């Protein structure tokens, strides 16, 4: 009797649990701790290239000598560009050495910002905006199309090492939603670009990827030929006249 009651209760509980959709957490960045691997461990030597060393000096000169640690973000960024779009532990250690702080202080920064990649990315790192305006305008479909076209999962690199797809939050381009960003690491830190491709459709996104594969540089910005930058389709519809000066002040007088 009791056993039956118990098993019935259990079944009820199971049912309740099943009804709750299993929310999977997708964090845009990788793990918050480091796992040694052959291409990413503290024993791998890592140094800035000669050209970048002068850049490092340049960057450091922007800050007072007793606040060297302020240079952590620009230096990490430079290191990331030099290292093909991601930061191995040894690069972070090198940055820590340059700005004279404990390595953990650099790790803290690098794990905080999702634009620092701590695992390998492709030469072209595609970042799909996942925030509400873009999502409403179809960013999920774009991501799906990209993943399907490239045959990878999110944050995975294609076999040829060319592409990877990640997610980003709003990049301030909502007016041209949906959009993706392409971080181009194919030419090291000299040829590094970080371009927005806006007003996409799944097909457009795939086209852009293919253009990159062919080595082209598709024009950045809106992909809707009828728009100029973020202007409305087919030209302005409001605010057609000259803007009125503020009523309270005579601008010419000052």
């Amino acid at each position, binding site marked *: 009797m009791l056993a039956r009651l118990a098993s019935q209760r259990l079944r009820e509980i199971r049912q309740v649990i099943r009804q709750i959709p*299993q*929310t999977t957490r997708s*964090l845009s960045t990788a793990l*918050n*701790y*480091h796992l040694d691997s052959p291409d990413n461990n503290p024993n791998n030597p890592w140094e800035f290239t000669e050209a970048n060393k002068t850049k490092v000096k340049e960057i450091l000169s922007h800050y007072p000598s007793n606040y060297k640690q302020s240079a952590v973000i620009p230096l990490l960024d430079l290191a990331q560009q030099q290292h093909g779009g991601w930061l191995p532990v040894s690069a972070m250690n090198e940055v820590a050495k340059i700005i004279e702080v*404990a390595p*953990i202080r650099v790790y*803290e920064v690098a*794990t905080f910002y999702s634009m620092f990649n701590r695992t390998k990315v492709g030469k072209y790192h595609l970042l799909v905006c996942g925030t509400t305006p873009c999502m409403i305008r179809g960013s999920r479909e774009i991501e799906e199309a990209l993943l399907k076209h490239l045959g990878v999962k999110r944050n995975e690199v294609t076999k040829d090492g060319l592409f990877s797809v990640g997610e980003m939050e709003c990049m301030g381009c909502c007016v041209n939603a949906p959009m993706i960003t392409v971080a181009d690491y194919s030419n090291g830190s000299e040829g590094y670009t970080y371009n927005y491709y806006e007003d996409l459709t799944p097909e457009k996104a795939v086209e852009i990827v293919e253009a990159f594969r062919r080595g082209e540089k598709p024009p950045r910005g809106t992909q809707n030929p009828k728009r100029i930058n973020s202007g409305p389709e087919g030209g302005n519809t409001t605010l057609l006249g000259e803007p009125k000066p503020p009523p309270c002040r005579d601008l010419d007088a000052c």
Partner: protein
Amino acid sequence: MGLGSIASRALRSNTLRPGHTNLLRRSIVTTTELRNAEAAQAQPETPPPDLPPRTPVAGARVHFPNPEDAIEVFVDGYPVKIPKGMTVLQACEIAGVDIPRFCYHSRLSIAGNCRMCLVEVEKSPKPVASCAMPALPGMKIKTDTPLAKKAREGVMEFLLMNHPLDCPICDQGGECDLQDQSMAFGSDRGRFTETKRSVVDKNLGPLVKTVMTRCIQCTRCVRFATEIAGVQDLGMLGRGSGEEIGTYVEKLMTSELSGNVIDICPVGALTSKPFAFKARNWELKGTESIDVTDAVGSNIRIDSRGPEVMRVVPRLNEDINEEWISDKTRFFYDGLKRQRLNDPMIRGPDGRFKAVSWRDALAVVAEVIHQVKADEIVGVAGKLSDAESMMALKDFLNKMGSNNVLCEGNGPNPNADLRSGYIMNTSISGLENADVFLLVGTQPRVEAAMVNARIRKTVRATQAKVGYVGPATDLNYDHEHLGTGPQTLSEIAKGSHPFSSTLMNAKNPCIIVGAGIFERDDKDAIFSVVEAIAERAKAVRPDWNGMNVLLLNAAQAAALDLGLVPESDKGIESSKFIYLMGADDVNLEKIPEDAFVVYQGHHGDRSVYRANVILPASAFSEKEGTYVNTEGCAQTTVPAVPTVGDARDDWKIVRALSEVAGVILPYDSLSAIRSRMKTVAPNLVNVDEREPATFSYSLKPESQQKISTTPFKAAVENFYMTDPITRASKVMAQCSALLSKK
């Protein structure tokens, strides 16, 4: 924060403010009323006149550096005077209101990231985080309003969102800030129905167990590691709900103070690994005692269950250890359960020990001691001996005609005449006033971790300079390695060394000489050079005494106070009868083959191998004993657990032996032996009071010794294993295997 105080506060406000009883229930308040400043002001402001005076929380004291800087604020209507620069939270504490908090810790920098300490401040549009808000004159702080209450409930709900609520299997349960505060200030239900996050546990070494899912990201541990312990290993990684505490790369926490993160972690994220799942804290009996593993005499509480010491936690003592203790102090207690001697034993002709009765063992010792010449009798007190037993041993051997009683670590020829020559004259808390340190042959980090923490605190707070003479070592603050041997000292004394000008220009120079130097043959010469340096730097003045000796062992200072000075430095080599009272670090090779060795102690450590008779004694956790720490403060231990087997207190054994040997010592109670001690060294009975030394080295005769060029040696080889108890401890063995830097 005790639940009791919170409950009593709740009760008090209940009885005192009949009009506000509804606050204690969970009431829904209309926000318009809350936000409306006019409405708040319209309420009568005068505090009810019959309010009893509130007492500051946890005896918080106000100290006004200069009285003009006092400001007045109102906490729940009570006016309180506080010095300028205090935070709202501190003002509330002084007014007797305990503000709930997680991230705020009075000894760490302010982070202001938990938001638990929200209070209402009149005319401020939002609740303010009291820990990070400086109190301003005339501020009207309200800690009991519906708005403050609601804010706390909200914060608590957020904190509990991702907290696993696994209190039944959590070692912190029962002494957890989160538990207590959610009971006192939290809501009775939450609205979160999503799945909770989980975090990978980190491996921080053999001492600290981590259950990172419980972490509430207060960053106390990160700040402790960075600021107090001086090891920048811990950090806050990630962000948002992915945020976690960790080291990023696999790394153990290699600090001698790492155990303190267990105490400061407000939840059960960082707990004690050796204590894990051993006991619940409400089953434990706390005994306030002191630590004997080094000469600092840290104040501890020994938590025991039945006959077993379950753990050791620090007690607050601002003058000695503040609220920290070293890892050795915290985790060596498992050594108290291993390798204990529990029966008197005699070594038979076959070389094996046989357990005998006390009567037989004492009879044998008494017989032998009468057969040797008086000057062939030597007594050695060990590192952990209390003053009572050293007094008894000295009296007993003196009665037997020998004056060869010494204490381990004090060297062959100690200076016991001038007290200032062997204690820390600046006092441990006084170190904070120094602006230049000169460390001579001492590595405080391993010799006295709490003194090192003070030096580090001073260096961090005031950028004090540290010069160090001795073998290369890893001090966790900026220091200048001046040299390795005594020649460097001579150079500084002559003024030819660059550091001497730093020293000369210092306002409060502080020279710390390591007790390792006591063992050197040219000890007197070194001391006179150091005194010359002190003279030049004006380190000893009526208002400042910067001439210090940092002792190594708990027994040393009391031994010198009692005059345990050997008659000749060849005592041990020419002896026929040696009484080792817990002395395990004497050089056993020096003891002649035919000498009769009595070992009285609690652990079967090194000397047992050479002993002819073993007399089991009780350890510091089992007896009442007086210890003097390196700054000259006498403190007593209190028995926390019963002794093992047939063991007895050290002084009682000596007293019994004296009777069997026919030279009865005239004391047979603790108070009697203490009054005997008082006649020799009155400071020993002034418990818990630091007795400064009156005369400085200026009384000392000139030394004719030549300084040798041998560099200084490290006095402590292995921080984790320095005495019989720590050597018996498994945890300490693990630590020295994993954490000691080779």
